[in-house]
């Protein structure tokens, strides 16, 4: 099963390198020099694993041969461009996976082709040290579930391929509970980190003093849980517990939304916080704190210009 990874940030690079140990891997990059570097040097993984994989990279989808498995691993803000690059009736035999934060990536991809789609949520993390070197930091799993009519057996087959490649992965018949757990977690943690400038550290779980950040984080999570309940989704994990656990890991993670606002880049706020706020409206649930965080991050983006 030849795979094509679209977007070679840290998550895309981790998928590409690991899958390349068990199958042919194509990488579609945004920048031409990134593709050339990957073709020349391969893709090095350090950290939890240590190896260098051979991949075939291109910056133009028209240069890619057919493949059977596509993983869209761009940021949420890059899904539209990625789906457009794969679209136009090309790659008819592919199953496409989305692994973006938030909600709605599947619909964006669907608008560009009728491929079988697989929803993904990944908890693994890495740090990209260069175009050809990614450090594998957290080896937490990737969960996959069928989107629409995609047969579950196909999802299981893909999860097995990821496991064979050395990653942790699991196929779930219904991904929504995991997707929503991560949605609430990301809307809360990424939003608060972007606004405060704090990495995801112990402040996020601290609730001893009246003005402590943990109260706000807890309030945001509780709102998210009410929205999930109204949407009929039973959460896979409690986002508050995910938060507390993550702050105890020792090294504080810099959520991508924080990195984005510091670099004055567009953030994933629409597909994360925006998606949650829109779900709240759709189901008639009050979410004043999530709404406030959403508006503030949007305003922060507006301040770039």
């Amino acid at each position, binding site marked *: 099963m030849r795979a094509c990874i679209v977007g070679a940030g840290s998550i895309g690079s981790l998928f590409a390198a690991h899958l390349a140990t068990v199958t042919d891997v194509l990488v579609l990059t945004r920048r031409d020099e990134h593709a050339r570097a990957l073709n020349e040097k391969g893709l090095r993984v350090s950290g939890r694993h240590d190896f260098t994989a051979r991949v075939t990279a291109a910056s133009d989808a028209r240069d890619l041969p057919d493949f059977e498995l596509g993983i869209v691993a761009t940021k949420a803000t890059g899904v539209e461009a990625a789906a457009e690059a794969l679209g136009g009736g090309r790659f008819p035999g592919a199953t496409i996976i989305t692994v973006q934060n938030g909600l709605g990536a599947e619909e964006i991809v669907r608008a560009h082709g009728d491929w079988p789609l697989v929803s993904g949520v990944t908890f693994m993390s890495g740090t990209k040290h260069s175009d050809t070197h990614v450090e594998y930091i957290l080896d937490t799993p990737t969960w996959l579930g069928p989107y629409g009519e995609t047969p579950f057996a196909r999802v299981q087959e893909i999860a097995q391929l990821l496991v064979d490649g050395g990653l942790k992965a699991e196929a779930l018949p219904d991904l929504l509970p995991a997707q929503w757990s991560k949605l609430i977690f990301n809307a809360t943690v990424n939003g*608060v980190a972007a*606004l*405060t*400038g*704090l990495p995801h550290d112990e*402040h996020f779980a601290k609730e001893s003093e*009246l*003005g*402590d*950040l943990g*109260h*706000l984080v807890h*309030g945001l999570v509780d709102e998210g849980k009410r929205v999930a309940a109204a949407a009929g989704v039973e959460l896979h994990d409690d986002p508050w517990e995910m938060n507390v656990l993550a702050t105890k890991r020792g090294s504080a993670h810099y959520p991508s939304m924080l990195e984005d606002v510091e670099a004055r880049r567009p953030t994933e706020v629409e597909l994360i916080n925006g998606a949650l706020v829109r779900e709240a409206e759709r189901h008639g649930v009050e979410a*004043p*704190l999530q*709404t*406030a*965080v959403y*508006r*503030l991050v*949007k*305003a*922060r983006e*507006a*301040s770039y210009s």
Partner: protein
Amino acid sequence: VKVCVVGCGAVGSLFAANLAQLDDIEVWAYDLAQEHVDAINRDGLRLSGAGDVVGRLRATSDAAQLPPCDFGIVATKAMHTSGAIAATAPAFSDGCVATVQNGLGNEEAIAEHVGRVIRGTTFPAGKIVAPGHVQWDVKGDTTLGPFEPKPAPPAEIERLADACTRAGMPTAAVADARGPQWRKVIFNASTNPIGALTGLTHGRVCEDPALRALVSGLVEEGKAVATAQGIELDADPEELIDHAARPDVAYDHKASMLQDAEARRATEIDYLNGGLVRFGDEHGVPTPLNRAIWALVKGLERSW
């Protein structure tokens, strides 16, 4: 009459330099910035901009140098109130002490050390441009009234208000000074932190309807806390916020808290939104949005 300005920053300097113009007032200034103190003692305290004044006064960074004073005017940033009044309180054992600071809780902090306290709110603004030199940006009114649990006598409040007014700082002595104070607190708590968290000027905050709605949510909570205490605001903060957003007023103004955030200085958030939350809790009024904003700005400070 001896008056000591405690905290001779921009606002304190406006009071100190103007009061020093009066023959019947002897002005002292207490401030920890030694360069500023030395410049004032050497060259006088100079104001320029909205008014051009040089005040001759005695400045010191050593509270033990202060003579017994009839009045204190505390003008430090709110987080320095306790320390400043603890150091200077002996000079006011027979005097009255007024606060002209931002936020909530300053009167309470002063009353821990001083018996007769004056609640105050002031609108003039400026900034220190060099040691001994303050740019006076905006003229404005000051309101003084008793701090109810430990009030200064009305005649003394009148006396201080009269001196300020004669000095060119129009000041009213009133029976209940909470209205102007809460109006200013609600205005600041609902707009300053939004500027600090987003990086937007006052005008841009107000022209984004979604963000303006968040500001209104904060104002509503503040009004509810004021109402629960029987405080009647002397003006509607919503109207003042919209007025300030006009291009000819303060559209391009960066809130002081945004300036603090950009300079990575401690902000007055504990005394604005934090104060509203504490007073709300005392009176059983929920303040979830102010609580959220308070926590976010505290988090921002902790990230530095």
